């Protein structure tokens, strides 16, 4: 099969590639020719006239909750992959808080098998401890052999400093990071950020120091063990500051932020809409400002959705009782480009680093190259497209988003990977 992407701009900071107005010939899923195409190249090919759209290495989201196994009513591996493709991603890493948890090679293999024929690559993250209970280390070596790219007890922090120390020491053998949901257990359990708003709304608060305490613990432990810690969904000012200082000391710590944590503050909780309830909670403007600063100066390495599907009936509950989390795969690119690129926080190169390159590097996954002979693993972006979010058009099985009807600038047009293309809502062979 032959596919031609006509008149595109190529950008891949990982290979110092920045080339305008070229065409690409893809044959059987591989880059055959990049440059000026001649008639014989385009003969019998499907030609997509792309008129200056941006082609980048396939985007990657390292924090996704696929609900399979356990809650297939909310998301399956396949619907999650469809959602990812629609959001512009060719690769995702999925969190182990399934039922059962990804704490055995069998569960990890099962998830990989479910995704095997999909365009989107799925990399499971293994649980640090059996059942994410914080007691016994999971079989990390077996999990690694089954394809796991990191370990996390996400949903909660690794329970104790002693089990975290052992996990970091053990994971170091495989050079894999421990991804931490940072929240001190004894300060957890509230419904929103502690601020003037929690006082005004009468909602039980979660103080930002709950996050900061564990970020501090984890940085100290990463330094002590000389092993890798990745801070998931960083949300507080202090935490960003601590990661910045740690990086100056070459401690092996990396961090991600979600689109909702850089685009919303806890002011929106005034609606009591459970679709703005998440953990970590939305915080204050001072926190958002520091996150923006951290994105700019490289303290925050990447953007990740924390895509957390929940059923309608669960999210229609009273705010205090509703589960935490929102879906994010299909609004991530739009929010990132609207809030970060068009507001001149990040350059286009930094955008691609944070949405494609850095998450792969953190997980030791090879960054796709846009080069003749290589497998075509790419995302086509229209960075100036203005569009309105419509949750009815999501491919995720769930619709728990606070961004429905939001006007965004910047949109994924399609993705190509594994000899398949997702374009205009359909998956086809290329």
């Amino acid at each position: 099969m032959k596919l031609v992407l006509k008149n595109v701009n190529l950008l891949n900071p990982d290979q110092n590639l920045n080339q305008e107005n070229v065409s690409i010939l893809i044959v059987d899923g591989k880059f055959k020719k990049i440059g000026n195409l001649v008639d014989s190249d385009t003969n019998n090919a499907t030609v997509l006239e792309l008129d200056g759209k941006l082609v980048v290495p396939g985007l990657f989201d390292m924090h996704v909750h696929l609900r399979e196994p356990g809650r297939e009513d909310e998301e399956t591996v396949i619907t999650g992959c469809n959602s990812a493709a629609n959001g512009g991603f060719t690769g995702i890493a999925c969190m182990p808080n399934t039922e059962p948890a990804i704490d055995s090679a069998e569960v990890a293999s099962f998830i990989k098998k479910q995704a095997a024929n999909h365009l989107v690559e799925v990399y499971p993250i293994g649980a640090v401890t059996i059942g994410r209970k914080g007691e016994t280390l999971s079989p990390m070596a077996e999990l690694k052999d089954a394809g796991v790219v990191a370990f996390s007890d996400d949903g909660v922090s690794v329970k104790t400093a002693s089990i975290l120390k052992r996990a970091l020491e053990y994971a170091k053998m495989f050079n894999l990071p421990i991804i931490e949901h940072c929240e001190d257990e004894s300060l957890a359990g509230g419904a929103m950020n502690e601020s003037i708003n929690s006082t005004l709304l009468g909602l039980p608060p979660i103080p930002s120091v709950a996050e900061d305490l564990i970020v501090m613990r984890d940085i100290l432990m990463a330094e002590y063990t000389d092993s890798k810690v990745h801070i998931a969904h960083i949300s507080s000012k202090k935490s960003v500051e601590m990661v910045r200082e740690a990086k100056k000391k070459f401690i092996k710590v990396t961090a991600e932020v979600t689109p909702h944590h850089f685009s919303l503050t806890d002011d929106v909780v005034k609606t009591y809409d459970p679709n703005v309830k998440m953990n970590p909670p939305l915080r204050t403007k001072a926190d958002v400002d520091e996150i923006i600063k951290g994105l700019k100066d490289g303290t925050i390495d990447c953007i990740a959705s924390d895509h957390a599907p929940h059923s309608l009936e669960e999210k229609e509950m009273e705010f205090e009782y509703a589960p935490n989390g929102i879906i994010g795969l299909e609004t991530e690119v739009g929010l990132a480009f609207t809030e970060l690129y068009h507001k001149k926080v990040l350059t286009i190169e930094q955008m691609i680093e944070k949405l494609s390159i850095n998450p792969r590097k953190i997980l030791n996954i090879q960054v796709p190259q846009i080069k003749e002979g290589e497998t075509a693993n790419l995302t086509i972006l229209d960075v100036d497209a203005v569009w309105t979010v419509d949750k009815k058009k999501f491919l995720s099985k769930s619709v728990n988003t606070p961004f429905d009807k939001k006007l965004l600038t910047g949109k994924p047009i399609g993705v190509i990977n594994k000899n398949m293309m997702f374009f205009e809502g359909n998956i086809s062979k290329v």
Partner: protein
Amino acid sequence: MPLSNRHLLGLKDVSREDIQLILDTATTFREILERPIKKVPTLQGKTVVNLFYESSTRTRISFELAEKRLSADSINFAVSGSSVSKGETLKDTVKNIEAMKVDMIVVRHAAAGVPKMLTRISNANVINAGDGIHEHPTQGLLDMYSIREKLGKLEGLKVCIVGDVAHSRVALSNIYGLKTMGAKVSVCGPSTMIPKYIEELGVDVIYNIDEAIQENDVLNVLRIQLERKAREYFPSIREYSRYFGIDKARLEKSGKDILILHPGPINRGVEISSEVADGTSQIILNQVTNGVAVRMAVLYLLGTLN
């Protein structure tokens, strides 16, 4: 002049004119309640549901009586536990109730924000009868009514809210209402029971009860919710009552006459000593009749908005 909002979710955004209107209307109803025949036909044909997700005797009876005095048809819908434990969502419950063609919903719920959620689900007028640790607007109105009745005004008065401010739904409603009416409001209690950033609402924080007595015209003493988590916020009941309890010696030492309110029921010997509770000093407990009159006013003003 009608009210400017069709729901009463809290006193946060209720204007001075609206509060004035409610209190003045309550005065009229208060007189009716002294008559031999205490019923008026004002809300005849209207249906009011008292949707209580949390057990409450006094507030529910007060609303029920107010509804009956106004000739409304009232239905009591008590749900034990939350919608979670029942397996039915709040939305389904409310949709079911709405199918019964109700005009007004009086709601009490342990979770903050539920009255506001109801306004999105239902077309009925919603009255908040207490949501979580958020607001309890009719209690706030009733407290203001009682203060005004005793002291003749609200403007310029100094009122201190004493006790577990952080876990009280009465505190916020009092703060908003009293400030709107021109009173100067402070809070006094153990620092663990004063919510963070409360100063941003324009209230002073006092940690010394004697100072609070000295500097204020009115104390609104909140109940320490011994049955709730409140116990974890101070070392012991003995220590609480010693440092924040109001007893006769304290009042005498202050050498002044101070008006004390308590929304009831009192933990005798904890926030107020029995001597003070039963004494002759100006103390307002369980303003049952005022409560009915204020709730009649709210129901009437919302029910006749069309």
